[in-house]
């Protein structure tokens, strides 16, 4: 038997089932009167029981069976879905998830006797282990017969290992680089056969690229759907009342971006629940609702997706962050209160708040550096907004994919740089007389890339500038030359220590030379 293949099927199937179980249990907990979810939960446990026993994963099969008994008893009416019973089912789902992940990592499986006993305490197993459980199962079948559930017609789908799509995407990436090279050669001979074939190949490669990228897209729900459970558990353990609103769960992102988002979002949600939101008593005293809200939202934006995580808690105390910043020598004592960008820079300073009681500054510093680093490594950027007493919002701008981005190529000195289209607003001209670039009479915060790079020598007086738009403001970047637009393949590389913040990545140009991709957030 091709065990690996079955194991892979078992893993993906069971993960789907368990995720669904969590959602069903959460809905059930909110409306305990309904017995709607029982049939589907039962099928999920039943299916995991079947496949795990087929693979000889006895501890998982036993646990699934014990959970199935509890659900049968509820169906039968001999057990009511009390908070204690639902907790038991939540624990069963967790236990199964642990088991499934142990299989995934080839760790050893062991039976959780305590959990099995607890579940069997709720619904004793039939006397013979394989004995009769006919009545409730028959009822289950009876119910299904009369149920009028509309089942979504299943679209024909195939499950594909992400690694295969990764390697396909790598090849497409190489192909894009080669195509760009070919186009550069062919364009020297406009109208030739070579140029015609090259242009045809360009079109085909473009189609292939779009197709492969689309195949890698997955709805953010695949990561978002674990948060209701996390928030519920956090609220319970913290003694708070927390509602999680999720919007835009159907928005799609590249699988690798999506997977990379899971940890930072989990982290920010924990922070929001733990430090951002107040206790019910504090909220009432402040004239707010007892229940705090965390809002998680995904929306499409120009050239990307914006994921926003907002809480309506106490907000970050800027004065406290300022005091701490001065104390640690990160801020000039004379400086005013930090603005949002400065606040994020301070909070993301590694270890900024770890020396002190985190609650004094809402504990926002804990791990924010890790979050920011991850978001940047995904090719995204993050902003922060906070208002005292009104809450804190993290805004993540993410590329739909991190593999290939459309960029404007600019030249400075002998080198070329790529600026992602996502941040481009328009082009302007910098007249050397003025310190700043003006756009329709309005002066913009201006950075000269020559100065950033430390290039010496006289530059021409009139030079091109690109107007960048990010973080809700417009800035200008002065360069030597605009060289045109191009799809650039973002190469994975390990960032060396001391890499300037404005380096967002690296790519290979059509002539084979490397070029840096600029991260404008690090320039201004």
């Amino acid at each position, binding site marked *: *038997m*091709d065990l690996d*293949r*079955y194991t892979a*099927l*078992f893993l993906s*199937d069971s993960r789907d089932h368990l995720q669904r179980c969590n959602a069903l249990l959460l809905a059930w907990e909110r409306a305990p009167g309904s017995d709607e979810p029982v*049939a*589907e939960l*039962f*099928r999920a446990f*039943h*299916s995991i*029981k*079947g*496949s795990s*026993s*087929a*693979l*000889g994963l006895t501890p998982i099969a036993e646990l699934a069976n014990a959970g199935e008994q509890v659900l049968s008893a509820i169906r039968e009416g001999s057990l009511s879905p009390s908070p204690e019973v639902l907790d038991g089912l939540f624990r069963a789902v967790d236990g199964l998830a642990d088991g499934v992940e142990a299989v995934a990592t080839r760790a050893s499986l062991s039976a959780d006797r305590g959990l099995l006993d607890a579940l069997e305490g709720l619904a004793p197993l*039939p006397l013979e282990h*394989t*004995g*009769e*459980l*006919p009545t409730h*199962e*028959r009822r*289950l*079948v009876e119910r*299904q*017969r009369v*149920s009028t*559930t509309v*089942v979504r017609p*299943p679209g024909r789908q195939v499950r594909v290992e992400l690694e295969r799509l990764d390697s396909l995407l790598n090849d497409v990436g190489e192909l894009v680089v080669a195509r760009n090279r070919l186009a550069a050669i062919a364009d020297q001979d406009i109208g030739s056969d070579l140029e015609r074939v090259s242009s045809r190949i360009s079109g085909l490669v473009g189609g292939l690229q779009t197709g492969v990228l689309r195949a890698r897209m997955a709805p953010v729900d695949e990561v978002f759907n674990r948060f209701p459970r996390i928030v519920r558990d956090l609220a319970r353990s913290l003694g708070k009342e927390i509602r999680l609103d999720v919007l835009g769960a159907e928005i799609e992102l590249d699988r690798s971006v999506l997977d990379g988002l899971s940890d930072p979002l989990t982290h920010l949600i924990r922070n929001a629940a733990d430090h951002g939101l107040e206790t019910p008593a504090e909220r009432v005293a402040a004239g707010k609702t007892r229940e705090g809200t965390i809002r998680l939202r995904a929306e499409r934006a120009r050239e990307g997706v914006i994921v926003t995580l907002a809480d309506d808690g106490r907000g970050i105390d800027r004065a406290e962050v300022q005091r701490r910043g001065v104390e640690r020598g990160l801020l000039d004592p004379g400086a005013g209160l930090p603005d949002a960008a400065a606040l994020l820079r301070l909070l993301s300073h590694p270890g900024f708040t770890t020396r002190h009681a985190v609650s004094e500054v809402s504990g926002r510093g804990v791990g924010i550096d890790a979050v920011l680093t991850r978001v940047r490594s995904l090719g995204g950027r993050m902003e922060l907004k906070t208002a005292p007493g009104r809450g804190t919002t993290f805004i993540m701008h993410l590329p739909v994919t991190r593999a290939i981005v459309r960029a404007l190529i600019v030249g400075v000195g002998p080198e070329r740089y790529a600026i992602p289209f996502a941040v481009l607003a328009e082009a302007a001209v910098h007249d050397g007389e003025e310190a700043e670039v003006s756009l329709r009479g309005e002066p913009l915060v201006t950075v000269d890339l020559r100065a950033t790079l430390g290039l010496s020598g006289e530059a021409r007086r009139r030079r091109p500038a690109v107007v960048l738009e990010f973080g809700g403001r417009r800035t200008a970047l002065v360069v030597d030359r605009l060289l045109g637009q191009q799809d650039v393949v973002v190469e994975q590389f390990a960032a060396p220590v001391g890499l300037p913040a404005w380096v967002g990545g690296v790519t290979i140009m059509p002539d084979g030379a490397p070029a840096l991709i600029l991260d404008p957030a690090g320039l201004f």
Partner: protein
Amino acid sequence: MAHTVLVCDDAIFMRTMITDILTQAGYEVVGEAETGAQAVEKYRQLKPDLVTMDIVMPDMGGIEAVREICKKNPEARILMCSAMGQQALVVEAIQAGAKDFVVKPFQPSRVLEAVQRVLG
């Protein structure tokens, strides 16, 4: 000519496993169904020589599907696939028209024995 089979189970895991066992033994799996309702519809379309039928499925359970199929096709040859502890349901399925049953987890040899018995 190879016998044709319709495999009905809501778990892709089980469908894959049954399909593998049957295909390796020279049977031709001509279709798969995930719900009882699909099983009835696919039976109508494909008229397979044999159906393997899970008991617990969404939409319409396996037993009801057996009843539906046998109502119109008394000659249908259906093999029930049950989990441990579903003996009473198996009896009900056989009353409804199923010819035999196997119990999960499957041993390929047991499945093939049952299939041969049903195809007679």
